[in-house]
């Protein structure tokens, strides 16, 4: 549910968690980003940083410049100033990622986990079973069948939580228990109802079943997509996965290594909430691609 009145919870002396609701939904997340944008715009003295998440905003503040009570009062007023979000239209980039599904690298990682940590069902097969899909082919179709909303950034530089915008493409999965100690860089995984691209060779808990040759962050800022920022994603972005074969994967990887790969980005559209809701009403969520 989305709360009428947000909750403000202390996180020590430097942080306040603003809880706007307790559900994972596009609407709640969109409210989060709308409030975050308002807070940034308001340039309230003493508010240092924000981490907007699925249904919460973590606010970092400087207690010498603003008190806890004043943050609550000012940010609370901003939340109340937001009426219906239905008429909102926002600039929203759409970024396409070439993806090799059921790739050898996530398989090798899985084998390593089974050998060293614990035996488990192979991730793609687990996803097929848990989501009642016919086969791996359908897993690919469903996963690549919709746009994903960049719901939150964080946890790791460049990492984003992607939420499927099409209810027909929702995949759920339990997380690894215990977590993996390593994950192939740019592996794609699903955990809970979210999807993520691993920006680097990090530990992880999502079920992994695909890999993209296109990086999502680059500290050297060589590729054109990273000229402005080390990290690719911004809130409000959308992502679409395009299945490719091994040959194409290798080709893109070569371009990345050469420093000439150009991410495929459409940055000329406005995302309309009203249209999205209208479109959702035409969708049969039980249908699968």
């Amino acid at each position, binding site marked *: 549910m989305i709360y009428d009145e947000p909750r403000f919870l202390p996180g020590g002396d430097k*942080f306040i968690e603003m809880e706007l609701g307790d559900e994972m939904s596009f609407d709640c997340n969109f409210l989060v980003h709308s409030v975050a944008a308002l807070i940034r715009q308001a340039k309230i003295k003493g508010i240092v*940083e924000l981490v*907007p998440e699925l249904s919460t905003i973590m606010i970092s503040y400087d207690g010498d410049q603003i008190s806890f009570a004043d943050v609550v009062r000012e940010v609370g007023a901003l939340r109340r100033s937001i009426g219906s979000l239905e008429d909102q239209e926002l600039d929203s980039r759409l970024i396409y990622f070439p993806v090799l599904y059921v790739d050898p690298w996530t398989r090798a990682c899985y084998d390593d986990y089974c050998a060293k940590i614990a035996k488990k069902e192979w991730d793609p097969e687990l996803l097929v079973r848990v989501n009642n899909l016919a086969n791996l082919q359908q897993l690919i179709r469903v996963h690549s069948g919709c746009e994903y909303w960049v719901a939150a950034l*964080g946890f790791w530089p460049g990492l984003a939580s992607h939420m499927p915008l099409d209810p027909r493409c929702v995949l759920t999965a339990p997380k690894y228990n215990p977590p993996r100690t390593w994950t192939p860089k740019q592996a794609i995984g699903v955990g809970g109802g979210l999807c993520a691209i691993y920006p*680097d060779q990090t530990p992880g808990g999502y079920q992994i079943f695909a890999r993209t040759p296109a990086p999502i962050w680059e*500290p050297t800022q060589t590729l054109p997509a990273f000229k402005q920022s080390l*990290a690719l994603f911004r809130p409000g972005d959308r992502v679409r996965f395009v299945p490719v074969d091994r040959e194409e994967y290798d080709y893109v990887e070569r371009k990345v290594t050469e420093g000439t790969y150009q991410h495929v980005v459409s940055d000329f559209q406005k995302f309309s909430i009203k249209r999205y809701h209208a479109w959702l009403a035409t969708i049969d969520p039980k249908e699968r691609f």
Partner: protein
Amino acid sequence: MISVIKPGLETSVQDWPGRIGYWEQGFPPSGPFDSWSFRLANVLVGNQPGEAGLECQFMGPTLRFERAAIIAVTGAEMNPTLDGAPLELWASHVVKAGQILALGPARKGARSYIAVAGGIDVPPVLGSRSTFHMAGIGGIEGHAIKAGQTLPVGESKSVPGRRVKPAARPTIGESRVWQIEAVRGPNDDWVDEAAHQRFVSVDWKLQARSNRTGYRLDGPEWTFTPRATNKRPEHGEHPSNVLDHGYPVGTVNLCGQTPIILVVDAPSTGGFINPYTVPSAAFWKLAQAKPNDIFKFNLVTVDQAHELRRAIDRLCTPASLE
């Protein structure tokens, strides 16, 4: 310029307050863990408190100064020597070109800080020189220093022979028991009253698997309120699971039954609850604690946490020198 002869266990370039403004993109603040000792080291050599210096963890480095410098060492006791002669902590010293500064294992405390007049002059990344080794950014090539590397030093005019008044220094006790302040929240309503009682009454032991990312604690089982046990399915099955949300730095993050204090290099978001948060004023204690040390938590209010922080801030100035 300083040459690294031995790097120590994990010595990194840090600045204070670290990398601020990129948290949303997943970059933690990093910076010195015990910022009290770190800032005083800078103040001793005439730097701004935030200038880049070295954080030495558990075992310090051996460094050769290629040109004369003024330095100070603070924090944990690692028996620093200059060309073999013991070097006093909490004071500023002249180092001549060619002299060798050597730090050993930490005898008391865990993290020692070396400040050099002029600061370590590596290029800032996203506004900070702090090393965030997991992402390979900041510091020297993004990682802890390695033998054979050289550390550039900025220009400065400074004077030696200053000392931090004993009253202005953090005191590292002998007991290996730490009284750590904690503020309730943000998710204190997810654990039940019994758990709250337990949290402040039992001893929590710092596990060896702890680092600048997180401090794992051993202790009793946790118990939960209905909010944690009856919730929407997207939060996850376990009572400690919650919809992914932002993590305050210092928060006591409950992963299943394991509390992990998320510290300077911690992830910014995740899907576990945070019933308590260690305020910034207690970070120096975390930094100086060693594995198997005991933590006892004292609850403070947000206002008290602010007061404690201000008290330390007031000490990190030239007024604390003599």
